[in-house]
């Protein structure tokens, strides 16, 4: 991957410690528009910490983040969203008592101004939610006025992804274990969605344990172990065996793509 194409996102030399625990050491990653990058690794390998630094939830002790070549500093999640980076977390981060449209637009509601006062455009948001779900997520949702609590796991996932896709000027979509809690059909729908989001020119970063899914959807795989990046491979030129070896720490010498 040494073409002159500038990555839409790059992280370099990221360090993050919690007390004595060094969660990420010299973490780095590059994400390209129209590409799916998978981050794999055992529990505690530093995947989630690295991603939380990217999304502004944690602040790195050292290192730099560049978006579109420009240095970026994320003090909080809002900064990260404004830079075009949005994430769907494992727990989906939905507000269970609010219905789907309120969740999809949470944090960037549509308003109608009446006498200069912003009022929520509930109808507009509901209409737009139907459109996003149908055209960009490929899901039809019945319980649009019900609390998200009453939706199925797959429907909740769709709402969470619709929310991220809906974020203004999305450049990088991060999916943390998107299919961990889904059935086969919902998994397929989600992986299709990942592809369709990628095809719209968005860089997708996906964290997963399941190499089957990773090889089905990702263009590159970045392996982390003990807080360090131990390898980056192209899925087209690699095998699950090889990646598995990197995850557990064998055969490291044989693959030196990074």
């Amino acid at each position, binding site marked *: 991957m040494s073409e002159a194409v500038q990555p839409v996102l790059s992280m370099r030399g990221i360090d993050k410690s919690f007390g004595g625990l060094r969660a990420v050491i010299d973490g780095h990653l590059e994400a390209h528009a129209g590409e799916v990058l998978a981050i794999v690794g055992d529990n505690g390998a530093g995947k989630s910490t690295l991603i939380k630094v990217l999304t502004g939830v944690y602040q790195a002790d050292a290192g730099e983040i560049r978006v579109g070549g420009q240095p970026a500093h994320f003090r909080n999640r809002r900064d990260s969203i404004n830079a075009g980076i949005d994430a769907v977390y494992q727990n989906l981060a939905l507000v269970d008592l609010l219905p789907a449209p309120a969740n999809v637009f949470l944090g960037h509601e549509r308003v109608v101004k009446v006498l200069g006062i912003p009022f929520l455009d509930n109808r507009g948001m509901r209409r737009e939610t139907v459109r996003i779900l149908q055209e960009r997520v490929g899901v039809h949702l019945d319980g649009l006025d*019900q609390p998200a609590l009453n939706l199925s796991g797959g429907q909740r996932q769709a709402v969470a992804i619709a929310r991220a896709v809906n974020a203004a000027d999305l450049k990088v979509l991060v999916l943390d274990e998107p299919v961990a809690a889904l059935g086969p059909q919902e998994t397929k729908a989600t992986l299709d969605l990942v592809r369709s989001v990628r095809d719209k020119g968005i860089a997708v970063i996906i964290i997963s344990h399941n190499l089957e899914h990773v090889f089905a959807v990702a263009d590159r795989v970045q392996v982390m172990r003990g807080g360090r990046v131990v390898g980056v491979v192209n899925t087209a030129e690699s095998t699950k065996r090889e990646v598995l070896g990197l995850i557990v720490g064998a055969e490291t010498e044989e693959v030196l793509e990074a």
Partner: protein
Amino acid sequence: MTTATGPVAHRRRELPWWSRFINVLGPMIMIVALCIVMAFAQPRFFGVPNLMIILHDMAIYMVLGMAMTLVITARGIDLSIGAVAALSAVVMAMLIKDGGWNAYLAMAAAVGIGLVCGFVNSVIITRIRVPDLLATLAMDQVYRGIALVLAAGTVLAQFPDPIPFIGRGRLFDTVPVSAVVGILALLLGFVLYNYTFIGRYAAAIGGNKESAILAGINVVRHKTYQYVLMGGAAAVAGILLTGRLNAVQATVGQGFALHTIAAVVVGGTVLFGGRGTMVGTLVGVTLLSMVTNAMVMLRFPFFWQLVASGVIIIASIGFYSYMLRRDNKDKEDF
């Protein structure tokens, strides 16, 4: 009769249409039951003079309940509203009586003091990070203390016209002005809750604070909005009460907080945050004011009234906690 206690295995995620009104249905049934009891026990309950008394009482709790609904929806609570009402009203009275202020200006000053008290509460909660319950319980003492010091044991009475007019006057000789103020407050609350960031983010913060923060919602700012609004509402309630009695002293409004919280929770706003309802608050306020009035009409000794209202509050909140627990238990079957 259809009850919610059918076999759990047959439950579906699709809830019956009437479940949307279940929160209001319970208190509505209680209102009807109370009316039936009073029809036999004391028909004067339905006389126009008594209905006016109930309306005047409701007006105060409509104003308080509107703001409290937003506070509780965001998983907060404000126990200081009685003292804020007293402090604002006492200052207003002193500005008029001792300072010779114009009554309108004095009322504006009272609302200003309420807003400041609410802001102080929010700073203590969001910046010093004292839990809502303890912060407002302690500030209740502070505001009450200041009101007592200022009033120095006196009763201030006989105010110029706009104040008694707001408290007990009638529009076109029929509609109590204070009830109009109360309804307007609830309408404002309805719009705030359903059509503005203030309501939407209160529900988000109370429903899932972590998610709200992840969505980029400024929790500190919105907690501040809620408590400032609550403080302003408490001041308006203080003005209404002062107008109704055409007198005020520093000890008024002691039952405001519990009574308001009970009305809001009886109406179906979830005490543990995430979901509120202004319509429910209207019904809850109606029920509680009617119960209080009925006890007076039935000549319950005052001290027993205190016992009864405490028991009603515990019973209603306990009932909704039980419902909530049961609902969550059902969720495990999904």
